[in-house]
Every structure is written in C-alpha cells, then in structure tokens.
C-alpha cells in the first residue's frame, strides 16, 4: 500500500499537568518511513496541516532498532515502539499519543522512572564479590541460558505496563516486567543466592498477588518475552515462600 501523503494526528501537552491538545500534520510518504522518520520530518518542517507553525513535537528515542526501549508510545491506540511502526502498514491518519500509565513529561515523552525504581526494589543484579578477575562464572546448561536470555531482553520499554488493566497511573502495581526480572535473576546460579530477598520484594503491596492475569502484557511485548510464564513461575515461588514463612519462621 503506497500513499502520496500521510496524516499524523499527535496528542501534545506542553508540560506535566498542562492541558493536552491535538496537532495534525500532513507529510509526503517516503519509502521505508517509520513513525520516527515522520517525527523527524516534522522537526524539519514544523507546520500543521492547516498551515500553522508550531514547536517541533518532542518524543524519546535512541537506537531506532527496538533494543533501547525509548520510543514507546500509543500508535493508533495501541502501545508499541515507534521505530518499528512502519508507516506503510499503519492506518491513516496515524494517531500518536503518549503512554497513559506514566506521567507525561511533554508531548510524547513520559516518565518511566517507576520501572527503574522497581528494578532497584527487587535487587535486580547479581551480587558479585567484585570486578577483579577471580575466575570463571558458574557453569550451567544452555537450556537455562536460553530461558534466561528470553527474559534478559527486557528493555524496560513499558509496553506491558501500559497495556495492563491492573497497572494504573496512581496505584503501586509493579507489573509484568518487574516480575519477569525477578525470575531472570533467580534463574542464574549466583543470582539464586539472593532468591528469597527478591521474592519477598514482590510479596508486598503492588506485588505479584495484585496481578489479575489479563495477560495483555505478553501480547504487546515487543520482545516476545514469556511474561505470563514468569508471572506464574513467580506466583509459584512466592506461594512456596509464603508457606515457608508461615511454617519455618
């Protein structure tokens, strides 16, 4: 499907708390264009369809090949990465909105620090003794590695949280990405040494028990991470931990 021009309808907001408004832009359609290249085109010519010169739209992006996780936004209503949103296969007009589950910074930029904060809460790291050379890491099967790798591709983009009906702007739900990271670190032989601390971190308000199993997370994850499997796995681990706490502590 090739079109001569495409229209972009963009929801804008000048600052946190400011009133959102819409701008429509008409652009020539170019081969290989994606939403990012359209936004760049708007930077080069920030004039709306009705001829008004406006400030360029602001958005976050970096790698433009879906590994950095920056450019998440709602495109035609659905959350995804803007870099892989190829214009040729999108419905016209292309409607761009910021994610709704994170505070808007400006235009299409949102503040996802809540996600990074969660990574800190779950102790998302391997407790190594130090960075000096003390020999090889643990030997473990390629099968486990493959499982871990699927999880380690999480780029903290926020798609799973935006699409999650249980995750809102105001509650404290941690969401699929965080639970999956707990599973990731607990899979590693060294990481498993701090398994209980990570489980305890999600056995709290906003933790794993708040998950409503709507499983939209796994549908929208751009990296096809088995998020629901992680949730069930962490569900099992935390249940066992609860029983352990009840019986052994």
């Amino acid at each position, binding site marked *: 499907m090739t079109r001569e021009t495409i229209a972009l309808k963009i929801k804008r907001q000048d600052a946190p708390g400011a009133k959102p408004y819409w701008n429509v832009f008409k652009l020539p359609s170019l081969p290989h264009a994606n939403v990012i290249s359209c936004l760049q085109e708007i930077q080069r010519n920030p004039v709306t369809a009705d001829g008004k010169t406006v400030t360029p739209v602001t958005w976050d992006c970096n790698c433009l090949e879906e590994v950095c996780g920056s450019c998440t936004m709602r495109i035609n209503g659905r959350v995804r990465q803007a870099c892989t949103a190829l214009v040729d296969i999108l419905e016209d007009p292309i409607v761009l909105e910021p994610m709704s589950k994170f505070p808007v910074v400006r235009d299409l930029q949102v503040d996802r620090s809540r996600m990074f904060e969660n990574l800190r809460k779950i102790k998302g790291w391997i407790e190594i003794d130090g960075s000096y050379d003390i020999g090889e890491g643990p030997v473990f099967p390629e099968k486990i590695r493959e499982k871990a790798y699927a999880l380690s591709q999480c780029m903290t983009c926020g798609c799973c949280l935006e699409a999650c009906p249980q995750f809102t702007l105001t509650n404290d739900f941690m969401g699929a990405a965080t639970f999956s990271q707990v599973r990731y670190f607990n899979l590693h032989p060294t990481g498993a040494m701090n398994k209980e601390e990570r489980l305890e971190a999600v056995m709290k308000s906003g933790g794993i028990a*708040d998950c*409503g199993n709507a499983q939209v997370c796994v549908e929208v994850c751009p990296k096809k991470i088995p998020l629901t499997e992680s949730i069930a796995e962490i569900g099992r681990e935390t249940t066992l931990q609860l029983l352990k706490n009840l019986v052994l502590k």
Partner: protein
Amino acid sequence: MSKLTKEDLHFFLLKLHSLTGIVPIGIFLAFHLAINSLRTVGVHQYQFSIDLINNLPFLFGIEVLFIYVPLLLHSALGFYVTFAGRMNVRRYPYYRNWMYTLQRITGAIVFAFLVYHMGTTVVPKIYYGKELFDAAPFLIDAMNREFQTWGGRILYLAGIFSAAFHFANGLWGFCVSWGMIVGPSAQRNASVVFLLFGLVLGLLGAATVVEFSLHPVPVAPSFTG
C-alpha cells in the same frame, strides 16, 4: 512467623482472596448447584437434601465460618482488586483480557444476586430461628414463586451462570497465580477444561431452574410456632 507488617498483610489478604474463592466458596457453589439439581430427579430427593443440610449440628457456626465470612471477605477484596485496576478490553481485545473483564463483571453480578438470593432465603431463616422454621417447605415455596415469572428465571439464570463462570475462571486464575499451571500451553488447556467444568455447573443450575419453572411443587410453608 515473624511480625506481620502492613505490606505482608496485603499479600496475605490477596492470597486469601484467591484461596477463599476456591475453598470454601467455590466448593460450596459446586455442591450447592449439584445438590439443588436433585430437584430434577424428584421433589423428595430435593427436600431430603435440604433437610439434611438444615439439620446439621452447629449449622449456624458452619455457615458463618465457611460461607458468610469467606464470602464477605472475598467480595470486599474482589471489589478492592477491581477498583485498583482499569479495564481496557476495548483497546486490547485479547481472549484473556476478556476473561479478566468478565471475571470482574460476573463478580459484581454474583454479588448483587447474592444480596437478593440470601436476602430471600437465608435472612428469613436467621430471622425466625431454627425452632420456628421448617426450611424445606419455605424454600421450595420461595423458589416456586421465583420461577413463576420470567424476571425471576432470568435473574436466577444470570446469577447461576455468572457464579459458574466466576468460579471456573477463578479456578484458572487461582491455579496460575499459585503457580500450579505455568507454561502457556498448560494455561491454555487448563482454561478450556475449567470453562467446560463451569459450563457443567451452570447447566446443573439451569436444569433446576427449568424443572421448577415447568413443574412447581405444591407445598405450603409451615410455621410450627
């Protein structure tokens, strides 16, 4: 167990929410619908079951501890969980998201239905007390009247099917969140099995409704007081 903090309590209560949905409420529901369907076999069998239950020793205690308290707890937490989230099935119309949404809607329907159902069955029983009250004739009469009208029939069918779905899908959710079914294909298969189970429960209840609607039982409630 060490000191229970507010944070621990949250987790504990939500676990309790999912547990109470199965044990005892779900189990009770299954028995309730199954036993009531004895009505399709015969009035006597039906009456016998009511009598059997209502003559259990410590019945009131059993009912409070195993039905009323869990139900209240499950409902309260259910509403809390529902209002903590925001449904979005129109934007993301996936199968499981529909189930998530229906779970919340049916939960609310069942709650409303139970207010009515228990108001018309349990409340008189408690109000009059066991000595003054012969359960079977009273309940049979009440049901006779309910199923005389389409309003009553629809109300009960909605309540029964909502409850059956809520239980079946809740059973799936329970198995997932307690980590009993983990992999995606296990989850898919379990979902089919549980929903079939829910359908059977719903049909059992519906059969009772149909039976009452077609063949009302001529009995008058008696008060021996």
